[in-house]
């Protein structure tokens, strides 16, 4: 998709006014967040596993060139093909070529964020090939021509009424009087419609949660089983993935898997974890004749060893966005591209540039919950700060911000002035705030339109401190 991250502020405003979206996002804390907490409590070693998962990835990244070579060798030995892609265009071209060589008409797809990143669907469609998303959430948004709004729950912004309307509009060969009120009925209809697509597809494209150098294996985790039907039914299986998905061994994969599902949905493990190695073997009654892996760089190699290196440890669990107050208020579409939430605020400027995505690192209260829950211990707030600094250096910061910051810095560097100003202002604000909060406040309407602003309690910190000192 064409990024609209530059319009982040307008997108966010629209999202804040979208009541059904707010209701949908409100469910996250009872679902993903509560379930993660339970899963963590059930596994005493969870925090140590996070350290180990981090260590596995750091070792891998430090030797990434060598592990990629070892991985490629194993894939080739087991009859598969590795296609290197420096850019999104390279990856699109490689996939299209495979599909065209197979004379493909329809392609089923498992959920892949890298697939979204390279906009493979549009590319295939332009060449007359029909891509069919099979993850239920991805299917729902494909019907609406929308990008995903969450990296593991792409249709989290939709309600069942919207899904019903889409199904009635699209599934025109089904009877008009059918009942589609409950999620179970909607799921059953999608299952029946997509079952035909699975059986008819010429090529199946999946992503990969992990690549294993030891065995030349790609790994996907799903709860639906769609990724498996996508890869075991068509004649050709294409894996679209990126260089940082690598781990050395099956043991290292175990470590990552132990923190992945628990951090993502709060499950002990996903229902299906599938290890795929090469095409079908002699005598196999099913499985693809060809197995291709397209390994994308797209700017990642340049992040190695730099300020944004730690972001390459990301395993795309979504915990950071589930716990983010900003994501929880505006949802994923406001971020304007493929990766939303805190991980998107760091990754998106790296992949599509700070000029397009400069607003995203500002979409943070720096509360730090994202880093606190990240299974790979990625210092997301620190990296958002790096982006803010770069944006400032580039001169992209609006003049009013600069002036305000300068005024604040001047006051903060002159303690007497600062104390005098706050000593005057705080009691004043305390007097006017009703019941300890402001429902509206001049110059702060951007805040008070959506929530109350807490009023100061009457004294500054310095005044309280002095009073405390005098008492003791």
């Amino acid at each position: 998709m064409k990024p609209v991250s530059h319009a982040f502020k307008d997108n966010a405003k629209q999202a804040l006014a979208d009541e059904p979206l707010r209701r949908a996002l409100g469910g996250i804390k009872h679902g993903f967040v509560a379930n993660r907490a339970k899963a963590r409590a059930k596994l005493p070693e969870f925090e140590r596993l996070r350290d180990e998962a981090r260590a596995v990835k750091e070792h891998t990244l430090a030797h990434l060139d060598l592990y990629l070579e070892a991985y490629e060798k194993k894939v080739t030995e087991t009859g598969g093909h590795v296609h290197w892609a420096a850019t999104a265009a390279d990856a699109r071209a490689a996939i299209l070529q495979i599909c065209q060589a197979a004379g493909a008409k329809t392609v089923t797809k498992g959920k892949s964020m890298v697939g979204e990143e390279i906009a493979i669907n549009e590319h295939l469609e332009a060449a007359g090939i029909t891509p069919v998303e099979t993850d239920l959430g991805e299917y729902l948004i494909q019907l609406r021509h929308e990008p995903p709004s969450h990296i593991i729950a792409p249709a989290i912004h939709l309600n069942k009424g919207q899904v019903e309307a889409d199904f009635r509009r699209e599934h025109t060969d089904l009877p008009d009087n059918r009942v589609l009120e409950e999620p179970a009925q909607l799921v059953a209809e999608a299952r029946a419609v997509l079952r035909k697509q699975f059986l008819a597809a010429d090529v199946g494209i999946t992503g990969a949660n992990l690549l294993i150098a030891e065995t030349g294996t790609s790994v996907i985790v799903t709860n639906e089983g769609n990724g498996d039907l996508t890869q075991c039914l068509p004649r050709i299986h294409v894996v679209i993935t990126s260089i940082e998905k690598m781990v050395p061994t099956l043991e290292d994969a175990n470590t990552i898997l132990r923190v992945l599902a628990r951090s993502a949905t709060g499950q002990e493990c996903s229902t299906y974890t599938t290890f795929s190695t090469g095409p079908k073997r002699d005598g196999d009654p099913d499985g693809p004749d060809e197995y291709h892996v397209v390994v994308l760089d797209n700017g990642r190699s340049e992040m190695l060893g730099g300020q944004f290196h730690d972001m390459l440890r990301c395993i795309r669990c979504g915990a950071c966005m589930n716990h983010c107050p900003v994501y929880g208020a505006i949802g994923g579409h406001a971020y304007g591209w493929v990766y939303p939430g805190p991980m998107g605020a760091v990754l998106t400027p790296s992949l599509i540039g700070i000029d397009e995505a400069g607003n995203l690192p500002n979409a943070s209260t720096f509360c730090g919950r994202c880093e606190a829950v990240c299974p790979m211990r990625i210092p997301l707030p620190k990296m958002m700060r790096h982006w803010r600094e770069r944006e400032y250096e580039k001169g992209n910061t609006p003049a009013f911000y600069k002036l305000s910051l300068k005024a604040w810095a001047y006051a903060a560097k002159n303690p007497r002035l600062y104390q005098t100003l706050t000593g005057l202002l705080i009691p004043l604000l305390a007097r006017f705030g009703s019941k300890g909060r402001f429902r509206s406040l001049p110059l702060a309407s951007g805040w008070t339109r959506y929530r109350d602003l807490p009023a100061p309690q009457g004294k500054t910190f310095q005044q309280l401190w002095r009073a405390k000192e005098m008492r003791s």
Partner: protein
Amino acid sequence: MNASNTRESVLGSIRGSLRVTGDDAARVDAVRKRLKAPSPNLVPERANVRGEESIALLTEMLEGQSAHVSRAKTLDEIPKLVANYLRKNNLPAEFRTGSDGLLADIPWGKATSLTHHLGRGQGDDAVAVSRARTAAAETGTLFLTSGPENPTTLNFLPDTHIVVIQAKDILGSYEDGWNAIRKIYGKRPLPRAVNLISGPSRTADIEQIIVMGAHGPRRLHVIIAG
């Protein structure tokens, strides 16, 4: 850019950013050692179970993930178990399997109502029976391997999936499971697919409400033999 140039440019860019070379002996050695002798990282204490303990934990975890579990003392008991399960759930009395030796040893004829089909999964199969080669009790996870014995399509196409596992094959951790798989395949590569299955198919993509049977089986019934 042609294919080999792209490969070199990606690898070159990685090496440039890391400020390393591809022939640094210490790096090459570190990678070679790790790949040659894979060693476990931290394994949760929970996975440190054997025998009946691991069977109990596997059962508890599988049931927690909406699978049904039953126990057969011998293979002879399995046909009746399957027939009863299908009847109780109002399912047709027929099923499909691959050519697995253990499944072939089950005296299916003992349950005269059952019809046994052989071969890979078809789009309209109601029931399939597969064999798990091993299982990791720590999360209730069955390891199924692809091949003529157990076609992968049988794991995903049918509405109801029945998995038979021998009690002695139930182990504690993922590491134990993979070591069992490594032992079976020796120096050969892994089978095309190793499916780790821990429950029936599900989705929560509509309003975060869990619904069983998204694309794969709506029911998973696990029979522990022995």
